[in-house]
């Protein structure tokens, strides 16, 4: 990978990190309603995915995917601030504040929306994929799923149907080692989710989800396979999330240290960039810019109006109006 591309990805990763850090701060201050799951620590996977998905593709983000949402918005619409505004429940959000963190969607940038019933969109993604197949449009339909989410029955129904119909589905499994606090090897017959996916007969690969180059290359390869009409592809990204459980950190200190200090996707990429010839200052500027834009977006979100109350009853049906109170 050349320096320019690597810098771009580094910038994307920093945008995610800054976004999530800013958001987390606001959440803790009580400015963001509801629940919050951050993608901190998983920036490489998200940035690499975003880099390969076109606006004409489709992705179903998982509950930690503000990052990919933001990148899609920036790349295909230039308005990442609308993701922030959505998280604050504002009228300027991508769903006018009706969806929030767990239901941010924007079809114009290929974002088909998170579904907070984990696993449900493993079924839904089939339909988007089938439509592109029937229309002979070479689009990729990507479902981003956590390791824990792979416990759901839709995992089987989805992989099986994608297999028999050779659907253009990219399963991007972000195996961060835990479902809430349950270790992946305790919740699944195998700690390697690919083992559960292999029986369906399409390519399955496991990779280092914190190594931006490996992520970028392997996704490129999978996406090419899918666009060539060769059917589904399953990628398992080994990664780790910063966010613990609400009672606090439950993982061994050594594990935390490994992932946050030795195997952090941004630190790793930074080292690589310096090797490739980037200057530490240059990298510092990228970080600074990401933090600045995040703050701008937070201000934008906070200054945005709340949705018109009429939105409460709007769009229940296409064909009918619903009465207010």
């Amino acid at each position, binding site marked *: 990978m050349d320096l320019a591309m690597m810098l771009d990805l580094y910038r994307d990763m920093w945008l995610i990190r800054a976004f999530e850090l800013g958001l987390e701060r606001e959440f803790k201050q009580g400015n963001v309603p509801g629940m919050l799951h951050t993608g901190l620590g998983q920036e490489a996977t998200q940035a690499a995915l975003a880099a390969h998905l076109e606006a004409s593709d489709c992705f179903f983000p998982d509950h930690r995917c503000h990052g990919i949402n933001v990148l899609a918005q920036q790349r295909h619409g230039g308005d990442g601030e609308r993701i922030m505004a959505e998280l604050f429940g504002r009228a300027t959000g991508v769903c006018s504040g009706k969806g929030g963190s767990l239901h941010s969607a924007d079809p114009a940038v290929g974002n088909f929306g998170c579904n907070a019933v984990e696993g449900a969109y493993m079924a839904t993604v089939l339909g988007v994929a089938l439509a592109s197949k029937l229309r002979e449009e070479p689009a990729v339909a990507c479902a981003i799923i956590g390791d824990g989410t792979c416990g759901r029955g839709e995992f089987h129904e989805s992989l099986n*149907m994608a297999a028999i119909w050779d659907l253009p589905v990219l399963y991007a499994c972000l195996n961060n080692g835990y479902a809430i606090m349950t270790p992946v090897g305790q919740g699944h017959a195998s700690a390697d989710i690919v083992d559960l996916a292999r029986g369906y007969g399409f390519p399955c690969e496991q990779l280092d989800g914190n190594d931006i180059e490996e992520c970028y290359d392997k996704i490129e390869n999978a996406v090419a396979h899918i666009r060539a009409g060769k059917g589904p592809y399953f990628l398992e990204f080994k990664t780790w999330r910063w966010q613990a459980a609400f009672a606090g950190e439950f993982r061994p200190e050594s594990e935390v240290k490994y992932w946050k200090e030795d195997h952090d996707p941004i630190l790793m990429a930074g080292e690589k960039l310096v090797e490739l010839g980037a200057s530490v200052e240059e990298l510092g500027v990228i970080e600074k810019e990401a933090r600045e834009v995040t703050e701008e977006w937070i201000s934008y979100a906070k200054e945005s109006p709340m949705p018109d109350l009429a939105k409460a009853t709007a769009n*229940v049906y296409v064909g009918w109006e619903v009465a207010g109170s």
Partner: protein
Amino acid sequence: MIAANTPASVDGPTDGPGGKKSKTTFVRALNDALDLGMERFPEMFLIGEDIAEMGGDFSVTKGLWAKYGQERVRDTPLSEAAIVGTCVGSSMVGMRPVAEIMFADFVGECYDQIVNTAAKMHYMFDGQFKAPLVIRTACGGGFGGGPHHSQSVEGWFMNVPGIVIVAPSNPADAKGLLLSSIESDDPVLFLEHKALYRARGEVPGGYHTTPLGRASVARQGTDVTVVATMRMVPMALTAAEEAAKEGVSVEVVDLRTIRPYDAATILESVAKTGRVVVANEAPKTGGLGAELSARIHEECFAELLGPVVRVDGLDTPIPFSVPLEEVVLPDEADISAAIGEAMRNSR
């Protein structure tokens, strides 16, 4: 499955999709509607278990696979969540899928996908997506199907905003409502009562729609209004004829769309009669009858001569043994009794 005793088959004469009005069966009317829909909407496809070569368990999709090919008439594995998921996802990008869930009893296996994905899609993303899909499914009892092949499931969805529930009672409406459901940009649960599949009736030829959300007055009357759905409509009409012999004039309102339902037509009829029976096959507690009764009382309290009388199934699962099933399911006699009860009411 050996289906000798099950109500099925595309039979009877028909003049085909393009013809004039003719007498045909409910199954045939549905089949025609699907055929006409497939012809008109290139974005439409059919999906379900053995709906292709076999034509489905009740022959509703018969012949369409041969005509439209396997891309547009798709057999699936026994994966109800994936079937509905495929519908939802494809409808988000402009397709018009029509799924068959073989028996309505099985919708529990795709309940989440219907209730939390299809029904909320348009709302939660504030209009950015639509889910113009139809889920056809065979419901209702009366043929010894037992606890898992006989249920009326409208009650499972009555409290779910965003879903349209359609429930025809005769071949003409079956055709017209199915075409309207296909046209609809909202997700539709389309209920087909198994005991009606062989019912015959006049059906308009060609492409013909019946509006969603509108009840029809199946019989005019002045003394009592019977609001009925699906199989209860022909039963209500029979009961009405019986009542006529006693000098009681019964108006029968065929609800046709269960959600959102047509309150105006009901209330208009009630304003005239002042007495109401609501007849639905599902268990009584928490059923459709409850909603209609509550609404009618709210809006017509002053005009009512007595409380709305509910006719429903008993609050039990559906037993297999025929005489027990007969006890559990409501019939003409129950409607007649309810009409009698309503007539005894006067303030």
